[in-house]
């Protein structure tokens, strides 16, 4: 019986065995072309949703144009991805190139999982003015660039157009008053629970959006403490809970059920990521998307970005590294095609080229300046999942008052951040 617990300890131990590794600088000079011998690159990503087939299509096209480079895609759900990647890279079994979220770059850089790509950004002539400032700056950790942004993706407000028509709503709500008016009208039209307030995903993303709308910040600028328990935060979370108290949302909305309910036409409005666009289109549901309304003082919405990175290699192969850079460069240049996956290309020049015209995400892309990103603090993912998400869940479920839940978890978050700073040696 003792074996089971020890068994787990040993699983921990075995991944621990490989340990260490040395710091590797960026590999040899990159020229922008690859004309070496045939190489096969393993390419890791987490595009398991409606975005997956699009990525594979782009990969196939790339291989057609590059006879000497074969791309072996490996797609794992993002949650497992971030657990697996450090283990694989540390064991020398990592990919040759991959994609990760913006808010993971600093953590992975601090963990020595990925290497700087400043030279690549230079060769690609990528510069700050082609990106929004936050996307561009978040890829930098300790003065070095670690990510090449592919896209940005935010929360969006999806609404059932049939329900809206039945309730006599002509325009998508844009602020607190019009949103509440829409909810009331929908209820009057017989849609009892028009907007479900989820306790788990994407509840915390809604919370962050509302917090930013109210003018608050989840974490202090100097990364010293969690500030999501501010007045702005309490107001944001209280609003999420009030949806339940006022009867717009049923109580105890469990994971994924608000999305399933929306797809089934059981609820009229849901806030979810724009990566769901293809899934909703395929379902045949009559829907439209709009930027989430400004419930607070100013428009703001949580967003994230997919970034290409180069992992640290225990044995560097210059050919592979160069081929990987060619791949990233090509992907960045073709990021317009990626709009078909429902995402918004990160480069302004691509966005302006007309690829977003007539797409569902088009109206959301226009508001790219309202998008807010988590600050690049190493270890922020753990802080989020262990504290902020707990507070949101407790308050939305009505297990604790928003203020109490937030201040308890913010205290834990600050401790965790202190601990992270110590272990990442900043």
């Amino acid at each position, binding site marked *: *019986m003792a074996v089971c617990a020890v068994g787990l300890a*040993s699983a921990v131990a075995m991944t621990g065995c490989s340990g260490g590794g040395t710091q590797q600088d960026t590999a040899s000079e990159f020229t922008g072309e690859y004309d070496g011998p045939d190489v096969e690159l393993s390419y890791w990503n987490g595009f398991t949703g409606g975005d997956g087939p699009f990525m594979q299509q782009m990969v196939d096209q790339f291989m057609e144009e590059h006879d000497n480079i074969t791309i072996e895609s490996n797609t794992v759900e993002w949650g497992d991805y971030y657990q697996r990647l450090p283990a694989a890279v540390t064991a020398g079994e990592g990919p040759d190139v991959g994609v990760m979220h913006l808010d993971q770059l600093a953590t992975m850089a601090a963990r020595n999982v990925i290497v700087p790509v400043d030279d690549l950004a230079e060769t690609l002539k990528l510069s700050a003015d082609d990106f929004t400032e936050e996307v561009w700056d978040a890829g930098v950790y300790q003065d070095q660039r670690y990510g090449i942004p592919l896209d940005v993706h935010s929360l969006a407000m999806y609404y059932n157009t049939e329900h809206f028509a039945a309730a006599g709503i002509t325009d998508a709500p844009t602020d607190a008053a019009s949103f509440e008016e829409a909810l009331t009208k929908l209820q009057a039209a017989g849609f009892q629970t028009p907007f479900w307030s989820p306790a788990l995903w994407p509840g915390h993303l809604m919370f962050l959006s509302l917090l930013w709308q109210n003018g608050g910040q989840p974490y202090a600028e100097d990364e010293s403490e969690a500030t999501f328990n501010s007045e702005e935060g309490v107001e944001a979370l209280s609003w999420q809970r009030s949806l339940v108290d006022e009867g717009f949302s049923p109580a105890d909305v469990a994971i994924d059920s608000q999305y399933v309910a929306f797809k089934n036409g059981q609820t009229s409005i849901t806030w979810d990521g724009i990566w769901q666009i293809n899934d909703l289109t395929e379902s045949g549901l009559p829907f439209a998307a709009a930027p989430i309304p400004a419930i607070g003082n100013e428009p703001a919405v949580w967003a994230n970005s997919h970034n290409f990175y180069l992992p640290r290699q225990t044995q560097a192969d210059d050919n592979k590294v160069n081929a990987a850079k060619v791949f990233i460069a090509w992907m960045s240049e073709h990021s317009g095609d990626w709009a078909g996956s429902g995402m918004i290309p990160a480069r302004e020049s691509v966005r302006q080229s007309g690829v977003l015209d007539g797409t569902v995400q088009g109206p959301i892309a226009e508001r790219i300046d309202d998008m807010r990103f988590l600050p690049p603090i190493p270890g922020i993912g753990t802080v989020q999942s262990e504290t902020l998400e707990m507070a949101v869940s407790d308050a939305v479920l009505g297990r604790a008052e928003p203020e109490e839940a937030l201040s308890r978890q913010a205290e834990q978050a600050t401790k965790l951040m202190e601990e992270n700073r110590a272990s990442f040696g900043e």
Partner: protein
Amino acid sequence: MTRTAQAGAPLTGRALADAKRRRTRKLAQGPFTPWLFLAPYLLLFIAFVVLPTLLGLWISLHQWDYTLPRQPFVGLENYAQLFDSDSLTSEPFWTSMRATFIFSIFSVPLLLVIPFAVALLMNQKFPGRNFFRAVYFAPYVLGVAVIGLLWRYLLDNNIGMVNYYLGRLGLPDDTAWTTTVPAAWVALIGVTVWWTLGFNAVIYLAALQDIPAELYEAAKVDGANGWQQFVNVTVPGMRPILAFVTMITIIASANMFGQSYIMTQGGPGRETRTAIFQIAETGLRNFKMGDAAAMSYVLTVFLIILSIFVFWIFRERRDKVVDNAAARKDF
């Protein structure tokens, strides 16, 4: 028992004679011979159990993040933090230990009694018996991900079918099976019992069929009724198997992870995060291998104490059986 007797039987014949002859001829056995026989398994055991266990102990004395260049030695601090209510690790860990305890204390008795009843039923002769045996065992062949997802949607309080049909039957239809306690525990334990009872039932059934029919005949001759046969023949005959089933059920319950990971995501809050869940989360997702290893060892200590207790209970009973037998002999 019968199997070993059968296997042993041929040895008494020619084989034994051969063996004897060989031994008398020459059998100077070196001191390493037993080790050589043990070697194939011993190597695996050392590589995959002993060494990782020791390394785990070593890791638990460090602040161990395998992606970072330094793993500073912290002595017993990881353990001390588990017992310091101000630390970051202590509260989540003890909440998870409590969750494992709540789950085990309810699921183990149910998983001992219900499969027993099912096995007794399946041991009767009735038409369609094999079909029902298969039906009870069927859920067990499904993986935890399958049953977890299945029940997560069935039990969802807003879109699930369980509450819908409860409502149709005029019963309360607003129980939040996955987002409130204690309803979440009822759901997790119920699903686990439904899922795994077939396995225990099959073991019980095999044991029931191993009880010699002569004992029942003898009991009948002595005028024992059904209940008396059950108490005096069936239950004593099942005792060794009961010990085995108790142990594996406790192990399985203490290891519970997948059901709450998938059905409740450990929620509400951390209420249904079990110890193994918390250890995996700490070590593998949050990269705090040192803390996770320390938690594993604390859990191990608890399980060792528990297993000693369980062994003690069953040994006590066996002694009693021997006493009874001795008493009967005197009689």
